[in-house]
């Protein structure tokens, strides 16, 4: 997982002055005094001076934009803030999540407000967990030329191409495992020369695995039967009738696993 992590490592922020101000509360973003170290970034072509230790998302907001599309959880789970950028003197297109990527001097960036990704409607109950599913629902998977561009574009450093290859082989467990941490940001899909929508393939594989290929849990089935048979009815009713003090006593006397 950590294979390409090095390229995104950054130095920790340098200590700033004025600790007493932020100490009042653990404050929400409020940037009344610009910190000393600033860099110039080009947000959709327009130059802005922003704090050198800002994330791309922080920089966009610092510059005065109110984000509508392009921000979601802001913690690296939802995939709303896919961003592409170039750096000075470098021909490469880089990709990242705006909430997780730090700005650099001369960065030229643009957020992708939405990614067009095809997704057929299907009935999970009627699918069979084998290679035929991918042939039917996502035939473009088989156009993969193994160029590895998707893997290079992945902000989570997932082995995207490997899971597409696994899909071609019908290895659903491997697709599930390798795509598990996918954010559905879509950066793989817009870079793919075979026009595959990788993240939707990953979701399908996870659902197939969870429904059809998992090992069943006997104790769960047993508990479901017990609940259905109203086994806990009396115990519930007793506790629900208890006065607060009585319940409190029971709570503090309870044993722990």
């Amino acid at each position, binding site marked *: 997982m950590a294979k390409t992590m090095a390229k995104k490592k950054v130095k920790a922020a340098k200590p700033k002055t004025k*600790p007493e101000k932020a100490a009042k509360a*653990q404050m929400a973003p409020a940037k009344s005094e610009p910190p000393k170290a600033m860099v110039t970034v080009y947000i959709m072509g327009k130059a802005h001076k922003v704090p050198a230790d800002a994330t791309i998302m922080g920089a966009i907001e610092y510059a005065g934009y109110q984000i509508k599309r392009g921000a979601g959880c802001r913690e690296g789970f939802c995939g709303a803030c896919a961003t592409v950028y170039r750096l000075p003197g470098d021909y490469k297109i880089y990709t990242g999540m705006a909430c997780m990527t730090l700005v650099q001097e001369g960065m030229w960036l643009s957020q992708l407000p939405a990614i067009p990704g095809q997704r057929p409607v299907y009935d999970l109950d009627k699918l069979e967990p084998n290679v035929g599913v991918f042939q039917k629902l996502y035939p473009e998977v088989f156009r993969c030329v193994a160029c590895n561009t998707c893997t290079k574009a992945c902000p989570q450093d997932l082995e995207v191409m490997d899971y597409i290859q696994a899909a071609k082989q019908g290895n659903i467990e491997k697709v599930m495992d390798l795509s598990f941490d996918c954010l559905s940001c879509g950066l793989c899909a817009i870079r793919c020369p075979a026009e595959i929508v990788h993240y939707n393939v990953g979701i399908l594989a996870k659902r197939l695995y969870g429904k059809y290929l998992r090992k069943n849990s006997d104790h769960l089935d047993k508990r479901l039967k017990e609940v259905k048979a109203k086994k806990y009815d009396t115990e519930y009713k007793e506790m629900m009738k208890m006065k607060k003090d009585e319940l409190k006593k029971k709570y503090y006397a309870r044993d722990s*696993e």
Partner: protein
Amino acid sequence: MYPDYMHDSLKKVDETRQKRLELERSGKNVFPPMTAEEREDVLNKFHPDYKPESRRKINVGPNKGESLTTEVADMLESHSRIDPQLFNLSKPDYETDILIVGAGGAGCAAAIIARQNGARSIISTKLRMGDANSMMSQGGMQAAVTEKDSPPIHYLDAMGGGHFDNKPDLVRALTEDGPEVVKWLEDLGVVWDKNPDGSMYVLHGGGTSRKRMHSCRDYTGAIIMRTLMDEVRNHPDDIKVLEFMPTIELFLDDKGRLAGGILYNMETEEYFTVKAKAVIIATGGYGRLHIRGFDTTNHYGATGDGLIIAYRAGAKLLYMDSVQYHPTGAAFPEQIAGFLITEKIRGAGGQPVNKFGELFVWPREPRDVESAAFIRECLERKNGIQTPSGRWGVWLDSPLIEIIQGDGYINKNFPAMYRQFNRYNIDITKEPMLVYPSLHYQNGGIEINDHCETNLKGLYVAGEATGGVHGRNRLMGNSVLDYNVFGRRAGKFAAEYIKSATIGKLSLKHVTAYENELKKAKIKTDRVAPVLLPLYTSDEVKKRQLTAHYEGTLR
């Protein structure tokens, strides 16, 4: 990479680790859990809710005269975004059975179950489907499924965690539906963590007396949310999802029954009317109101929009004086300040320690107690670490987990957390994380019964927007369960209701009446709600934003 001045303290954490490991392995509690009196004491002195300025009286609406969280009272005493007179209510733009407000876990679960019960729905959402706190939960979902556990034991844990203020019928629904939710999600394709024999892999959380935390690595919410979204997308004929179109007012009919709502297209700034026989509010929480100036773990749109539209329509709120601060928000580095560090870290053996590397609280106290103890350790005892920007924090000793659970455990079970810190050159398998409480959860909300019904006919509420399930403090893993249990129930009971429900003429009279009430209470304000999005523009920029009149925009 931690700054040099923290190295002495980091060394102390290293030095005390062996002793703390032995303590953990002894099977005894690593620190004495607090008694009821000790809990009360630390909460009274250090929990942000208990400061006098944290609450104020609300002067309008169904809860008039009650003391509520200050920022919530401010938000409720706000103007509507619309002038009711401008709307033609005789020709709605959309018609459906159920209007679902919010496309997080509760909204999606409700839509799926409502459809199975024969009801069509429109989901109105401010951002994209799944842009919700549901997506972000890392640690897991509680459900009593093991032999040592039972739903009533889960009930007792939840009641104690909520200081016995929880509504008993709601806690019974929560805990008794738990096992079924595990199975339902599994059949929809959620990949739960399991033991090699197929049994569920479960851990402890704060305030649990049995191991019942189910997880999907530390992407629990993301896996569940994406599964629910994917299922919603499989039914485009019955479930219509309108993104970037929040519901900003509700319709009542001439008999006071819910009859739909007004949607605002945030991009074109148009308003659309939806006529529906029932409404389910599933708008989640309010972390982005940054209560008491705290950082938050919440997603960008968590501004409590459902509270205000329901309140204007006459819905009663419960426990809106109680805010949950998650004990372990990131305090360093600055860029991720406030981010959630899952409680599962402590469930797996991670210990909070002070700058001397010493334990100062039992790691599995309920969240409010644990948070208050962290604040006490920093602000009163001064045994915390201060960051370069002045934030306080205590260490959360994650390297201990690798020793307890074996090498590679963190990478396998906490990939999101590992990534998060590795970006800033902090390897959490070798160095601890610096943490401080972060604004996390809206304990209170719109009052419901175990059918998700409110005091208004046809109004259903599910998930974080509700009040009563968790009393005044929620336990870890009960919110993921909550949005599933009550999302499903709201879908089911709303679908049953619409079979015989009729609606009369659409009305916005309650919006006009609320404005009059504000006037009568002599409240003069330019606040407008729903808030929709927080504003993070720098002061430098604001100084130059001098347009005399804004029309229709978010500002």
